[in-house]
Structure formats: structure tokens, C-alpha cells
């Protein structure tokens, strides 16, 4: 016993009966509380399995109703179930909302101010603006960009907006939801698609430059295909469905090209490209995202109908890319001309298509196709020739001269080393009695 203990013990012994100091365990208090609770009658809320308190659970279970959810959730349902989220009576939360609301007011006032500036500048004659029409346009564009930015900033701190976006209920016509969606896309899917563009050499092979700004997802028969996956030819027989999410405002017209960039060309001993689908004048906006290829049938849209991608036996995998190209604002392409130009699908060049009609590539996705057991059937059904051909890689011999056998044993095969033959001859797999047999 330490000295302190020794000193304090008689004191403590004396004190204990008088003042009954008890550390943390409040056994008596707890017992007393339990006693009072037993007297308490269950309220209407306690008969509801959604909000029953722990002490009335057993009654409820006896009555045949199981309590729902955790006890914590039930207490929350009792206290705040009837309140909307933004009115929950928590101090820090409400103070925070006040701060955020004040900030939003500021931003809205600033938007008003900028809009007035834009209106003034629009009315102003270009000759009076320093720098002329070009400067006026630049100024207007930068002011509008700033307003868009402010619109995002006004709403970015709203918890309900965040919640709605996470639930997938966001209205993509509003800048804040588009901002959230783009941030989410850029955080993973964009990186994935740029990786595919790089690793499958889409950029030098098909287009000199490709930086997607729209999210294109690929679905075959309700199942999502990750970019670059090898798809069974039976599955890709039917045209896919695209889910296209654009992140900038307003409707626009796009063209869609599905291109197989690995068609073997035997005569030239090379690969060429083949167009599997071509459509133009497809209207897209942030809010309508579904784009089923099978539904594109109109005369002013469909130029080249869907041809299932097939890979002949023995050919390496075919990269089938789906390219979304934005047309110039409010200019329609002449589909009849497209039909005429690209009726023979072979030798389609996306780069020349882009340049000829002044299009901008905005979205990309891809899958691969290889020869499988269904390919022959698919080719027959769609009368694609070449199912009976099998490609074989030509043997490329090494240009290096053959190398003599090397090593300790090989060096000691000759009669000069007769005394070592018991070590160098008749080694299993290497040599026999006549000498070195190992082929390289």
C-alpha cells in the first residue's frame, strides 16, 4: 500500500457511512428510474412498431407486431418524423443554414447585378465599346460565364440539392445538377474512358485528337457494358442503347458513328475501317439521356443502318468505337448525301467525315468483338461474307544468326575432354553418347 493510500484510508473509512460518495455506478438511481418507468403507460406512439420505445418492445412483440428498425431510428421517428429536413430543430444545423442562406442571398444579388450589366452591354452600340464588336462579344461571353458560375455557387451549399442529386432526382436543366453530374463523371468515368482511348490507340488510329466532354454509356439488352469489354457476337447482333449525358445547357444536334477500326484487308496485308452505323441530326439535351439505336429510323436521321460487328476467325480483336459528334448549332446534315457517300461501309474515315461536315467529337465509348461460336450464325443471318475464312498469322523468322550451344557441358563435348565424358555425355534432355542434342 502506498503512503497516500495508507494515510487516506482511515479518513475514507470514516467518511463512507456519512456521505456515501459513490463513483460512477449509479445502480440505485438506475433502479429508481426503472421503477418509475414501469408505472408509465404506453402511449399511442409506443403501440406503433415504427416508434416504440425499448421498454414497450416486449408488449408489442407479444401482441404479434415486431418493432421496425433500430432503436435509434425509432426515437428519431418519434421526435422529428413529422418535420421536413430543413426544419429539424438542431442548433448548429439551423445556424449553419442561416449562414448559407445569407451567402445565397449575396450570390443572387450578384447574379442580378451581372444580368443588369449584360443587358446594358447588349444595348450598347459596338462602336462605343472599346475594342469593337469582338471585344463586346468577349465581354458578353465572359459575363455570361460568370453568371453561370454564380448560379452554381448559389446552390452548391444546399443540402437538399445534394440529396436530390444523390437520389437521381436532379433536374439536369439546372446548372447545379449538371455541375454535380459532371464532377461525378470526371471523378471516375472520364478517367476510365480516356484510359481506353490511350491504351487502345484510338487517338492516332481513328482521330488525331479526342477529349470527351459528354458521358456515353453503352447498354446491350439492359446490361451495361464497361468500355472496352469483349462482347459476344450474339449479344451485339441487336443494336445497343446509349445513355448520353451532356453537361452543357440546351438542346443540340449530334451525329452518331459506330466504327470498327480493325477490319483485316488481305490484299493490302493491313487493316481498314468499316462503318457499322451512321445517323445524324439526333437531338440531345441534358434531360433526355436515353438514345436507343434501334429507335433511330427517321429518314432525316438514319444514314447507315446497324450491322452487327463480327470478327473473322483468327483475326485479332476488333475495336468497335461509338463516336458522338456534335454538329454546328442549328445546322442539319443532309442525310441523303450521307447515304450516298457511305452506302458501302468499308473504308470509312471518321476524320474525313468530321472535316467534311465540320463536326466536333464530344463523346466516346467502345467495345471489342472477337470470333466466337455464334459469329458464324450472325454472319450468315446478316449475309456478311467471310465466315469460312480463317486467318493465320504468318511465321516471322528471326533475323539473328543461329547460336552454337553454349555452357560448360557444350564446351566439353570434344575428345579433348574425354576424361569428362562421364559428366558431359548422356545427360538427360541435353546430350546423348554422340554429343549435344539440346535444340535451341
Amino acid at each position, binding site marked *: 500500500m502506498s503512503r497516500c493510500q495508507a494515510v487516506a484510508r482511515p479518513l475514507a473509512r470514516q467518511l463512507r457511512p456519512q456521505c456515501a460518495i459513490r463513483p460512477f455506478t449509479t445502480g440505485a438511481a438506475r433502479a429508481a428510474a426503472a421503477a418509475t418507468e414501469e408505472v408509465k403507460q404506453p402511449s399511442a406512439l409506443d403501440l406503433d412498431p415504427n416508434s416504440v420505445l425499448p421498454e414497450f418492445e416486449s408488449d408489442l412483440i407479444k401482441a404479434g407486431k415486431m418493432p421496425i428498425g433500430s432503436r435509434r431510428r425509432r426515437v428519431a421517428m418519434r421526435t422529428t418524423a413529422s418535420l421536413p*429536413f430543413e426544419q429539424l430543430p438542431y442548433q448548429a444545423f439551423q445556424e*449553419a443554414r442561416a449562414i448559407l442562406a445569407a451567402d445565397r442571398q449575396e450570390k443572387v444579388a450578384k447574379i442580378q447585378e451581372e444580368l443588369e450589366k449584360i443587358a446594358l452591354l447588349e444595348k450598347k452600340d459596338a462602336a462605343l465599346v472599346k475594342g469593337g464588336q469582338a471585344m463586346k462579344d468577349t465581354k458578353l461571353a465572359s459575363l455570361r460565364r460568370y453568371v453561370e458560375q454564380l448560379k452554381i455557387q448559389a446552390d452548391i451549399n444546399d443540402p437538399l440539392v445534394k440529396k436530390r442529386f444523390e437520389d437521381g432526382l436532379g433536374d439536369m436543366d439546372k446548372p447545379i445538377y449538371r455541375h454535380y453530374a459532371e464532377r461525378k463523371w470526371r471523378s471516375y468515368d472520364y478517367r476510365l474512358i480516356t484510359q481506353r482511348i490511350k491504351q487502345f490507340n484510338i487517338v492516332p488510329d481513328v482521330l488525331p485528337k479526342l477529349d470527351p466532354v459528354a458521358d456515353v454509356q453503352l447498354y446491350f439488352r439492359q446490361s451495361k457494358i464497361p468500355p472496352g469489354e469483349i462482347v459476344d457476337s450474339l449479344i451485339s447482333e441487336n443494336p445497343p442503347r446509349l445513355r448520353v449525358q451532356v453537361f452543357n445547357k440546351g438542346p443540340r444536334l449530334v451525329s452518331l458513328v459506330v466504327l470498327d477500326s480493325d477490319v483485316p484487308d488481305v490484299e493490302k496485308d493491313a487493316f481498314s475501317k468499316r462503318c457499322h452505323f451512321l445517323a445524324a441530326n439526333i437531338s440531345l439535351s441534358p434531360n433526355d439521356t436515353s438514345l436507343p439505336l434501334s429507335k433511330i429510323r427517321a429518314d432525316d436521321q438514319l444514314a447507315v443502318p446497324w450491322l452487327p460487328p463480327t470478327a473473322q476467325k483468327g483475326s485479332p480483336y476488333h475495336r468497335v468505337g461509338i463516336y458522338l459528334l456534335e454538329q454546328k448549332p442549328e445546322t442539319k446534315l443532309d442525310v441523303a448525301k450521307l447515304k450516298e457517300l457511305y452506302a458501302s461501309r468499308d473504308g470509312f474515315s471518321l476524320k474525313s467525315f468530321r472535316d467534311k461536315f465540320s463536326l466536333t467529337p464530344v463523346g466516346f465509348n467502345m467495345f471489342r468483338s472477337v470470333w466466337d461460336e455464334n459469329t458464324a450464325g450472325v454472319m450468315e443471318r446478316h449475309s456478311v461474307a467471310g465466315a469460312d475464312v480463317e486467318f493465320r498469322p504468318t511465321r516471322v523468322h528471326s533475323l539473328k544468326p543461329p547460336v552454337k550451344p553454349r555452357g560448360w557441358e557444350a564446351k566439353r563435348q570434344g575428345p579433348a575432354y574425354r576424361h569428362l565424358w562421364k559428366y558431359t555425355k548422356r545427360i538427360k534432355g541435353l546430350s546423348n553418347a554422340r554429343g549435344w542434342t539440346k535444340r535451341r
Partner: protein
Amino acid sequence: MASSTSITGLFSRLSLLSRNTTSTATATAAMTSTSTSRLFSTTSSSLARKAPPPAGGSAPKAVRRNRQAPKSENFFRIRTLRRNMFSPAPPPLRMARLRYLRHWTIHRAWQLFRRKQHEAIDKERSRMHAGMYNACEELRKTVGPGSRGEGYLYRVAMEKKGVYGLDGVPIEYARFQTDSPAKEAWNHEWKR
């Protein structure tokens, strides 16, 4: 010796010693006490645990009933630490969806609040600096006083000699701001 099998090596050696010696029991006791105090603890000898003196001069019994290792003076402290120091850390916070949304709201508001504070401070500082800059610029263009030339006052004002010395700032100026004032908040009666 029947009992020598049950006692520790130390004591068996001691007992051998005492059996061989023909000295008195007091000498043996003194020896025992010195050896224990050196071995077992560094406390003052009054508090240190003492081995009981051997009963007989030539035949010491198994002197220690309590055979566990001797307790150091820090025994209780160490026991407390050993029991409690390695308690597992509490689990990370887990929040339900709406609770997390509230937390996010509070966090965003706090960041906004801090940013506004910082911006206000920045603005204040640049405003004060601009005021000083303008005043100095005016001073630079000033002629005088008396027969002095243009910019004389400015050159003197820019002189940094002695600014950074030990007497640069008086010690009273290092008073911190506090949450509540002193009993006499301001000394109005200060006399030189």
C-alpha cells in the same frame, strides 16, 4: 537441509553462506538487509520491503511466504497504465443519411464562414497598406519643412535604423487580448 529446496537461488546461497560462517546472527541479518535493499528497490530503506531476518543463526527457514515477484514502488501506477493504455480506440463515427447531410451542411457553413473571415482580414490589411502607401507617396513629393528639399521627410520616415532592436517594441504592448477585462480595466491614473 529440507527447506533449501523450496527457496530461491538467492536465499539458498545466503543460507549456505550463513551456515558456513561462524559469525553471529546479527551479522547475517545485516548482510541480508543490505543485499535486498540494493536488489529490490530504490526507495528509501524505511519503505522498502525487507526480507525477514533468518530465525536461527545457522539454519534459516523458508523465510518468504509470498513468493511472487516483489512489487516496485510504481507497481500501482504501472498496473493502471497497463490496464488502460492499450484500450482500443473508439470506432469511427458512423452517421445515418440525414445526419450526415446535416453534418455536411454544418461543415460547408463553417468553411464558408472561415473563408469570409479570412477575406475580411485580407481586405482590411490591403486597405491599411494602401492608406500608408498613399501617405508615403504624398510625403515623397513634399518639400520642407523649412529649407529642406523635396523628399527629405520621406527619407527620414523610411529609415529603418533601430527598428528591430531589443527596445523596438515596449513590453506592455505584448499584452494579449483576454475574454474578460482586468479588475481595473484601464489605468487612468498612470503618471510618468
